[in-house]
């Protein structure tokens, strides 16, 4: 075996160990990033909202995604139909990415893809 092959094998096995570690933690705190990405994956659009608008949406019956409470500080993450969001003038559209802008949004409203993903976007 060449030195290069030995190194590549070692690296691959290290990655497998880390992946197995991540998998075992999927239901624990470390798994929050997967759960957050998953919720975002089911969103066609994302908006940053003022807290009071998010509170209004919750009062209307929009259920916060549990993953928002798993972050520190916690975030309000809601799936909301596009028609309802269109009525909120202060909603600021964000790119659907896991980036600093998304993470800094205190309240995140997500428009579900049309196949009804909102119903299935609960936590892993």
């Amino acid at each position, binding site marked *: *075996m060449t030195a*290069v092959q030995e190194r590549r094998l070692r690296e*691959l096995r290290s990655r497998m160990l880390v992946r197995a570690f991540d998998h075992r933690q999927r239901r624990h705190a470390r798994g929050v990033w997967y759960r957050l*990405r998953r919720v975002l*994956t089911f969103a066609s659009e994302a908006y940053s909202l003022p807290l009071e608008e998010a509170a209004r949406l919750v009062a209307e019956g929009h259920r916060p995604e549990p993953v928002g409470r798993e972050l520190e500080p916690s975030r309000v993450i809601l799936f909301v139909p596009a028609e309802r969001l269109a009525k909120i003038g202060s909603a600021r559209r964000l790119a659907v990415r*896991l980036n600093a802008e998304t993470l800094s949004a205190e309240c995140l409203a997500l428009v579900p*893809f049309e196949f009804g*993903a909102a119903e299935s976007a609960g936590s892993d």
Partner: protein
Amino acid sequence: MGPLPILIAVTFRDRLIATIRAARPVLESPGVLVIGSEVPNLLEKDSAATLVVSQDLDVGVPVDRHAALKPRLAELRLFEPSADEPSVWTPRSPELLELNFVGMDASQDPTEAYVLEDDRLPLLVFGALSLVSRGAEVEIGGTRLALPRPAGLLLEKLITDRTGEKGERDLLVALGVLATSAPEDLDELEGLYRRLRSELRHAVRSNLTILSLLAPRSGMPDPEPRRSEVAGLLRRLEAGEAEAP
């Protein structure tokens, strides 16, 4: 100012086609197939090769076809084995790409890897490639070569650990495969997925979420217009999971 992207693409396509022509003796060896990042490039109309990927051609060698392939290596007159890594054959001309020989073992666990020792052509055998099987044959540059079945190739890309720039580009290659997949390919992918153990199924779903949120990159498929397909695939895979929604 560098060359225009279109000129880079044309030049790269020329090199890719020339490499396939020069590698004909091994590419037409029984059981051998082209795998890796060049597959979506070759699947484009007229093998347009517009994706910006590494400058090599991955040649998948089933371990039970290794012995039959070896005599053909002598016919690779435009390449020579790298002194550092003998599974890589470097071109003698800048107009060609490297050949990267990779072992495939259908009986291997997808998370394992081993070295097939050989004086002439040692191979690193990646377990994830056990999911890849021979698909359609196409004729390119006068060479009849085999491509992988899209479902297995896509799944292989999605279970492999993806980190850093290369990892993200590899996921966009997976997007390129997804874009050219037919509904029956996705049925096949789901069937293969269901046979994986929990950890690997989770890796697939996790990589789909990463793919969905990637920013566009020059010369690669744009994930934005295909996010709904990715979400649909994730939802479909989750549907049969006892553990996850």
